[in-house]
């Protein structure tokens, strides 16, 4: 059979099983697993995909490796120079800085600006270098949580490919010369010929300088542009509420969230605060607890869609029609609103795609009616203005404004847009354009032809962090200071006023936006940094009653810098909904019902979970953190549903070219004279005839990391319709590309690993998790063949992960990477399953229909088994148990046999196949021994990257195994602190919940809890005693210290298809009921047994511990 035939037979396999039930297979991570293709089964036998035992990318085989090793060892024996102890030096300070205690880190409050509003941060600085970013736990919005980007921004600071020099027309100049150039430009021009194009940072100080600039240079154009900020939303807000109003959903208050094309838990401006608020309404502790309900209507699976209780696939362009139908249903249910009426009056019949059942809309509308004033109806910001207004009108009619939506004051100034700048420039009306931040040459709408227009402007001044496309097009360039090097301020998403203070002097003499604007205004720098003076002035001016006394002024300023924020008494607005304006608008602009033409597709363009709008393309941590849904790393792809892929006759499959690697076909998307080519990725749960592409990739001018990553979706994005391109045609190109998709790595082979139930089922069967999987049959605590470890310590560590509130956002992965010095491995190595993340998030789909699955997430890291299988097979005792219950990894003993990884049922051990800290400086991956082949450039770690390492965690070298340590450095630090405090008393216990692991600290949804499982007051003790607590693969009797809380779906029974939702786990209980008698009878006793012997009996065990620890263990084991 030739290759083509094989492909076809395989796709038939996939598509045929789409419609049929696949029997016992309830949870699956990829299509290959879903269909159980022979290649997939073959792969399960291997720990790693393709040729992990062979080097790759060159001809080096194991045999030649051994030869070379032998040779190099022989050579090494010739000289024993390395045996001499080298002379090392201790270099203390000449004058010790205040607060500095050598060897201890200090935390400073600062903030990270972003398009949606800043995040308050606490950054740890170790001997002057920032090493870890955490949320500011004092700040009420997100506490110690941050999003993934904030975690990764640390690496941006140390990026060796940052813009480092001031330059004029490509020639390096000094900062003084730059200052002179700026003055020259200012003196030679008039305001009307100057435009500023800035990114969106919500900085009151920058706004103040902007106003001064507009005063001194009348006629100046001040424009702001961010590709992911919607002008439609701003317009709709202004029409509905007038100028200067900001609307914020209050997720804590909502009993029902109805999200239409709005990924509030993911990229759409919600951020950790939204996740935190929402997860508060989703915490289930015992049977009978209530949780909020989430309806999601979207074209592709998002993080929000994965969390939904009811989800509807709907093409982006059909959302207006859907909202109309929803409004009609609500009206039929008796809702009264003039604005809804006028919107409905202009629209006749609407047609929706086949998969949308009217009863879905009707029943969900009933639920909305039942939750008046307690619901949130959310709409995607890229949807047309009229649609957004109709959604506002529905919320108004439901009485949600003022209850689940709050309104606060926002700046009234409305900056110009990028269109205005381009308009002026193309007419030759500009001679100076100052581009601050952003990257418009790369991300401006394609129809504006920005880079061509730029050539008509004489002076293009650029302040940028990276040497990017815009920098290349500028005539005068200044490196920007990273926010960790800057003085500044910003408004947080909750409206509080945050301070940005520098943690380190600019590494490359970068200047801040405030510095540049100040220079342009001709302000002279005083003694202190000018930007600090500007921020201080802004801060004092914002005080409602500024103190007259200089001393008091200093005092409130210092407290502001110290805390990082002040809670300003934001005048809460009433948010008066302007129904007349809205009605008029909707009559004039009736909602368009776009019908999809046969053979044409809509292409939805969204920001990326990894690269955002392109700004994180050079950030290796973000590149390697897989997309939460597609699990794609280092690339973006053309996402489409399995049926659409079949229609287009395109494939993306495993083992096509190389065993174990996803290979996909490249397709060209053509629309409105624009085209772009990218690899197909088949996405279960995607709407039919709809295609999704992520922005942010395909950058042409980047550092080493971002090179050749993905394709540039901006090339088809126009200014009129930034969210979607309709009427696109897709062509096959016949070319292929290999993708680094991690979704089927580290597979645990479909056992009852993830457990869920509908909330109502849980109410009736509180202990359902105990009746799943093999452990419902296996004796509970059988004796271990090996001697159990002596768990004699007073405090025993354990973790509980709540699957019900985990959104799968990957912030924990990046936080862990930052805390534990985990290397990135690069695209090629990810393809081979050699990613080093200690924590992975398994994304499962469930259900029988590949087109409409449900999605679940499960973070998996080392489970710290008490009877750890890895420990028994290590020939050199490199992994052993500590007395406080940790499975510890001793790097300096490890000789790299990898037996432990083979024997780990959870597949959480990671092996350093290469020395990732000694790679060639300009490559992310280089084949082994390339220095011997003579193709090598200097190796090592760039100095700046070394600065980002956590000094309390070993940097591992080639050939050692590593894995999650439960952040042992934090445990030890706190143990030591407790002992230091105890001195000659006997109280050496770490106080309850005193510290957090890195993943726990960053988690906005509070899904992870960690602590002493013997301490009855601790959160982890409480959680481990919930009835829905279970161990993954519990029947192996490895007794993992990490346990999980089951996932629930709050199903509305009236909804169509409700009987099938959230059933994938519990339906197995009925199965086994058929075989072994009904549930609750035959197995009742099992249930009791479990209850007695879950983790709960830890305290009992503990009593017996001490000298006789394991005899007792044996005895309890013996009972069963």
């Amino acid at each position, binding site marked *: 059979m030739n290759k083509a035939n094989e492909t076809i037979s395989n796709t038939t396999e996939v598509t045929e099983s789409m419609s049929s039930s696949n029997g016992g297979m309830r949870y699956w991570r990829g299509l290959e697993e879903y269909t159980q293709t022979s290649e997939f089964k073959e792969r399960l036998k291997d720990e790693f995909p393709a040729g992990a035992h062979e080097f790759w990318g060159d001809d080096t085989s194991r045999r030649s490796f051994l030869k070379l090793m032998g040779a190099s060892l022989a050579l090494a024996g010739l000289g024993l120079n390395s045996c001499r102890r080298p002379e090392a030096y201790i270099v*203390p300070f000449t004058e010790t800085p205040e607060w500095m205690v050598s060897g201890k880190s200090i935390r400073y409050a600062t903030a990270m600006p972003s398009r949606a509003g800043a995040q308050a941060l606490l950054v740890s600085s170790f001997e002057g270098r920032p090493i870890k970013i955490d949320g500011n736990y004092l700040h009420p919005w997100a506490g110690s949580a941050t999003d993934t980007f904030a975690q990764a921004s640390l690496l941006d600071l140390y990026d060796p490919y940052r813009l480092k020099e001031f330059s004029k027309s490509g020639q390096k100049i000094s900062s003084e010369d730059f200052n002179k150039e700026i003055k020259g430009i200012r003196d030679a021009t008039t305001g009307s010929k100057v435009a500023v194009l800035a990114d969106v940072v919500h900085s009151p100080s920058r706004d103040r300088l902007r106003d001064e600039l507009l005063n001194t240079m009348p006629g100046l154009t001040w424009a702001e542009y961010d590709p992911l900020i919607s002008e439609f939303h701003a317009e709709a807000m202004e029409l509905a509420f007038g100028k200067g109003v900001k609307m914020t959903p209050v997720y804590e208050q909502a009993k029902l969230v109805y999200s239409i094309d709005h990924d509030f838990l993911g990229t759409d401006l919600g951020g950790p605060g939204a996740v935190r608020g929402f997860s508060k309404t989703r915490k289930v502790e015992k049977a009978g607890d209530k949780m909020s309900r989430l309806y999601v209507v979207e074209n592709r699976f998002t993080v929000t869609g994965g969390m939904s209780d009811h989800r509807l696939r709907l093409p982006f362009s059909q959302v207006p029609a859907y909202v109309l139908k929803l409004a009609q249903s609500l009206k039929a249910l008796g809702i009264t609103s003039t604005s809804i009426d006028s919107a409905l009056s202009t629209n006749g019949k609407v047609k929706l795609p086949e998969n949308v059942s009217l009863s879905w809309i009707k029943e969900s509308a009933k639920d909305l009616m039942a939750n008046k004033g307690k619901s949130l109806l959310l709409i995607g910001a890229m949807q047309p203005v009229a649609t957004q207004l109709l959604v506002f009108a529905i919320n108004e009619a439901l009485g949600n404004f003022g209850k689940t939506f709050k309104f606060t004051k926002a700046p009234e100034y409305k900056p110009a847009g990028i269109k205005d700048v381009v308009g002026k420039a193309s007419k030759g009306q500009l001679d100076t354009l100052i581009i601050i931040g952003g990257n418009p040459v790369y991300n401006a709408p394609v129809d504006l032809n920005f880079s061509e227009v730029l050539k008509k402007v004489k002076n293009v001044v650029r302040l940028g962090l990276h040497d990017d496309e815009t920098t290349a097009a500028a005539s005068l360039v200044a490196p920007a200071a990273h926010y960790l090097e800057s003085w500044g301020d910003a408004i947080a998403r909750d409206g509080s006023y945050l301070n940005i203070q520098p943690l380190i002097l600019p590494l490359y003499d970068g200047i801040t936006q405030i510095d540049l604007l100040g220079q342009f205004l001709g302000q002279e720098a005083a003694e202190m940094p000018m930007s600090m003076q500007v921020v201080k002035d802004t801060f004092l001016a914002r005080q409602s009653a500024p103190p007259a006394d200089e001393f008091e002024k200093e005092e409130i300023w210092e407290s502001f810098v110290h805390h990082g924020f002040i809670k300003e008494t934001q005048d809460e607005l009433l948010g008066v909904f302007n129904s007349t304006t809205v009605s008029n608008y909707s009559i004039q602009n009736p909602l368009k019902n776009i019908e999809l033409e046969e053979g044409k597709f809509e292409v939805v363009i969204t920001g990326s979970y990894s690269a955002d709008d392109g700004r994180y393309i050079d950030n290796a941590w973000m590149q390697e953190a897989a997309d939460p849904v597609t699990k794609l790393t280092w690339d973006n792809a053309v996402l489409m549903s399995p049926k659409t892929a079949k229609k287009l006759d395109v494939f993306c499959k495993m083992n096509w070219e190389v065993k174990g690697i996803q290979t996909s076909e490249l397709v060209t998307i053509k629309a409105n004279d624009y085209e772009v080519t990218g690899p197909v990725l088949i996405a279960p749960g995607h709407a039919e005839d709809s295609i999704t592409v992520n922005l942010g990739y395909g950058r042409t001018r980047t550092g080493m990391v971002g090179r050749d990553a993905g394709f540039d979706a901006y090339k088809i994005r126009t200014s009129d319709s930034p969210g979607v391109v309709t009427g696109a045609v897709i062509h096959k190109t016949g070319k292929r590309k290999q993708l680094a998709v991690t979704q089927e790595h580290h597979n645990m082979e479909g056992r009852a690993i993830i457990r869920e139930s509908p909330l109502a089922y849980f109410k009736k069967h509180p202990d359902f998790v105990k009746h799943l999987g093999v452990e419902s049959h296996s004796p509970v605590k059988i004796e271990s063949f090996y001697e159990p470890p002596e768990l004699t310590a007073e405090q025993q560590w354990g973790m509980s992960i709540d699957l019900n509130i985990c959104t799968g956002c990957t912030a924990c992965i990046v936080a862990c990477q930052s805390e534990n010095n985990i290397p990135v491995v690069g695209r090629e190595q990810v393809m081979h399953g050699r990613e080093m993340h200690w924590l992975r998030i398994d994304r499962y789909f469930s259900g029988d229909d590949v087109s409409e699955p449900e999605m679940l997430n499960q973070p998996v890291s080392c489970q710290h088994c008490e009877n750890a299988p890895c420990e028994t097979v290590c020939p050199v005792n490199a992994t052993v148990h500590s007395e406080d219950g940790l499975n510890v990894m001793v790097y300096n003993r490890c000789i790299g046999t990898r037996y432990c990884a083979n024997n780990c049922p959870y597949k959480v051990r990671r092996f350093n196949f290469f020395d990732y800290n000694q790679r060639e400086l300009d490559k992310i991956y280089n084949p082994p021994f390339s220095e011997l082949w003579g193709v090598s450039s200097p190796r090592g770690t760039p100095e700046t990257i070394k600065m980002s390492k956590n000094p309390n965690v070993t940097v591992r070298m080639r050939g050692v195994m590593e894995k999650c340590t439960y952040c042992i450095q934090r445990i*030890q630090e706190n143990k030591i602190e407790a002992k230091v405090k105890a001195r000659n008393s006997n109280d050496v216990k770490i106080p309850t919940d005193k510290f957090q692991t890195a993943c726990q600290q960053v988690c906005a949804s509070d899904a992870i809890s960690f602590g002493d499982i013997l301490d009855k007051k601790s959160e982890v003790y409480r959680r481990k005693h919930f009835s829905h607590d279970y161990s993954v693969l519990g029947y192996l009797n490895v007794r993992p210290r990490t346990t999980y809380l089951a996932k629930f779906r709050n199903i509305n029974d009236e909804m169509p298809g409700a009987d099938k939702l959230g059933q994938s786990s519990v339906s197995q209980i009925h199965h086994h009921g058929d075989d072994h008698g009904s549930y609750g009878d035959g197995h009742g006793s099992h249930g009791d047994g479990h209850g007695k012997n879950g983790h709960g009996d830890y305290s009992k065990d503990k009593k017996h511990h001490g000298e006789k620890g394991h005899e007792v263990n044996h005895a309890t084991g013996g009972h069963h």
Partner: protein
Amino acid sequence: MANIFPRWTNWLAIKAVIAVICIKAAVILGVTYYCTPKYTRVGYMPTQPVPFDHSLHVGQLGMDCRYCHTGVEQSSHSNVPATQTCMNCHSQVKAGSAKLAEVRKSWETGNPVSWVRIHKSPDYVYFNHAVHVNRGVSCASCHGKVNEMRVVWHDQSQSMGWCLDCHRNPEKNLRPLNEVYNMDWEADSYHAQIKQGMQFVKEWNVNPPQNCAGCHR
């Protein structure tokens, strides 16, 4: 038939075995002695850029360790003092001494003094000073009688076995907390030390880690 092998070959095998055993024993003994920190480290006494004399400052003048090593009670690292600390006194005392030229130069130029490192734990060892000195382990236990050293040398082997000796039997080295910085303190007798040490272990709940993760992470 004549013997193919001459007579002396009868003993060859035994001789060879004995020779191998002797050589092996010599190699093992050699390696155990000459490659241990006891040989490679103890006694290491490099010349420092400034001939700082601990026996003068601590022994004769009675200065406390913590006057210079300020971080020892709070941090993992016991810091070597900044030039500023030296200048506290030496801007007045012996202000013109030739021995202090390096210190004065450092103070004037802002370039620090490069002291030669004597004690170095490997990168994969995370030793913490604070937890030891706050729980009754004296400086002298690991660094020797620094108050009598004109030039500081490496006094103890500081090998892992040496660490574990104490972690297994902490009573041998525990002393009252107010004697931690008294380099000359000694219990009345070995038995008195053990008795008192046992009492501290019990009263203070001393339980030094013996698992790998205590020092390696």
